């Protein structure tokens, strides 16, 4: 096993599935789990709105691929790839007092463990997230899920991971 293959990768879908498009990150991870097999060094997780509770899986990872709704004033369905300082800018989106700031969680991980995994975000501009609670994701976002999956799989490969499609 090479050092690269040992690298622990966490694919983390964030969001609140009750708030329509805000839950897109969770739904994309669900699709990935449905459609692909991953090697043991890759963990796929529904991180929901769990905030600081995610500290443990984050500290255990070397590299995190976060999937989430990102507000960036672009048309709904625009797909983004953010890393480095851009991660800081995107993570301030809170839509309830229970939304734990994911960036704060990352900072706390470093404070607690001295370790801060590298992170990249595959994000998408939401359309509906401030309406009444519902599980329905807007069509504009549903249409872009395959594209997001392609990007996420590329990130996984770039980080040294591998996957195989599941039988249909």
């Amino acid at each position, binding site marked *: 096993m090479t050092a690269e293959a040992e690298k622990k990768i966490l694919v983390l879908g964030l969001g609140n599935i009750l708030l329509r498009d805000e839950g897109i990150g969770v739904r994309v991870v669900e699709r990935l789990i449905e459609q692909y097999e991953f090697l043991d060094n890759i963990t796929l997780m529904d991180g929901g709105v769990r905030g600081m509770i995610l*500290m443990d899986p984050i500290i255990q990872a070397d590299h995190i691929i976060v999937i989430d709704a990102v507000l960036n004033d672009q048309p709904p369905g625009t797909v983004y790839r953010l890393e480095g300082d851009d991660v800081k800018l995107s993570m301030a989106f809170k*839509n309830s007092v229970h939304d734990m*700031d994911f*960036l704060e969680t990352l900072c706390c991980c*470093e404070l607690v463990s001295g370790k801060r995994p590298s992170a990249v975000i595959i994000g998408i501009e939401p359309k509906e997230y401030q309406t009444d609670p519902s599980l329905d994701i807007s069509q504009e976002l549903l249409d872009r899920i395959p594209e997001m999956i392609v990007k996420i799989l590329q990130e996984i490969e770039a980080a040294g991971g591998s996957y195989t499609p599941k039988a249909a």
Partner: protein
Amino acid sequence: MAGCKPKSAPVTPVGDYSGRVVIDPINRIEGHLRIEVEVENGRVKNAWSSSQLFRGLEIILQGRDPRDAKHFTQRSCGVCTHTHALASTRCVENAVGVQAQIPETGLVLRNLLLGAQFLHDHIVHFYHLHALDWVDVVNALSASPKKAAEITNTAGLGHRKHTVAEFEATQARLKKFVAGGQLGIFTNAYFLEPHAAYKLPPEINLIATHHYLLALKVQLLPSRMMAIIGGKNPHTQSLYEGGITCYDALKPENIAQFKALFLETMDFVNQFYIPDVLAVAPYYLDWGGIGHTTHFHTCGEFATDESDLNSRFLPQGVILNNDLSKVADFDLKKVEEHVAHSWYKDDSPKHPWKGVTDPLYTSLDEMETGKTGRYSWMKAPRYDGLSTEVGPLAQCLVSYARGHKQTTALVNLVLKHLGVGAGALFSTLGRTAARCIETKVIGDEMVEWIAKLEANVAAGKTDIVAPFKMPESAFGVGFVNAPRGALSHWIEIAGGKIKNFQLVVPSTWNLGPRCDKGILSPVEEALIGTPVFDPKRPVEILRTIHSYDPCIACGVHVIDPKTNETYKFKVC
């Protein structure tokens, strides 16, 4: 014993401010709480505790199957998770008459599950919810890591030995974190500028901060313990009227895992939590005279017979007028909820079996203009017309007064260490010490319960639930002494469904408003006389509020992400 006790007892400074101070929202609690005080010449003269949130759980439950109550009520809160499920389960068990039939192994599992909740709650509370009121994290940056290691390694408080390197590492990470500008959990902290009410020397600040960070990882352990018996955490799933249904928890490998997690948690309690309380308390000894309350009650906890409160490991009882020489038995008939100062229709106090939940919001204006009309979504529970505190201090006092061996030994140890008498227990300092004492008392007894579980499984005693029949109509009540205090659920069943359901929650006992006689609630009473040095950073008020470990129960507020919320006084 270098550096572990102050040469002379520090005194909390009194400022000279006169006027109103509003803290809204109170942070480092669960839920939505607003505290308003009238300060005169630097001391609190009057206080109002306002819960800002209405849930409506009691209304939601009407007409439902009584067995569903536990699933709804548990969603009151994910912090004091499980406790409401247990209260609802006991409540319905009482109504259907199955309490005395619950198999012993089922009871042992339930006690272990609740015990794990205490371990989780109290560790998280001391470090992550309360400590920053006493510990100056920024001041820790000036500490000598070498001196800090000397304190942990030689002061005789019971700390595990630390290395200089680990204190250096934490201090370096802290420096980087604070310098990074992303203050995260320390945003708006009162100690970002020096604050005269913070009294710890830099080394103790560093030790406590180092342990605060460790505790973030340790708290996962009891949380996982609960998942082994509860199925998952938060919001356990395995309780059922008549016992519990977690058959997997009887498997040797799961008991072994529970035990391993438990032992590691208790190592932390013994070698970090208790020594830290003993290290910090001497610098805040005058807090043994601040945060005073008068009456206390507990319904006890950890039953061997659910039909008998007196079978509980921690005893039930009522203490009035700070008199430890008299303990009365808890009488459920003496519980009443008042709404005269709460946002509900109907003014008359009611026993929970006749309780009504009919909300009617007026405004906060009556409080703001100096008259105290209605000002809280909480009702005001009263015991025999009196405002009684519940929680670790209440349990500790009742246990102490009843001669509970394990509690008495620890209380006396702490009083001796601090050089104070039992009177100092009726205070914010007492409340904080009681929480720590309770953690150890319960944790130590859990060793016996694990042994019992192993013995029962080996002997084939693996029944964990008894059957029952749902009656057409019945009344029932379930009592839990939760980590925050006395919790009770009251049910009236009619036509086999919930006709009425009332929750009387510990934070309502402690943090509710005045009753119809205008008697202050425990927290309101406790705040009177509190010194306030800096009205813009009223940490002294927070010290007492947080000593109650408020759990007001969460709800959803939608915040527009594009606007900045500002409050009168930001709380860290």
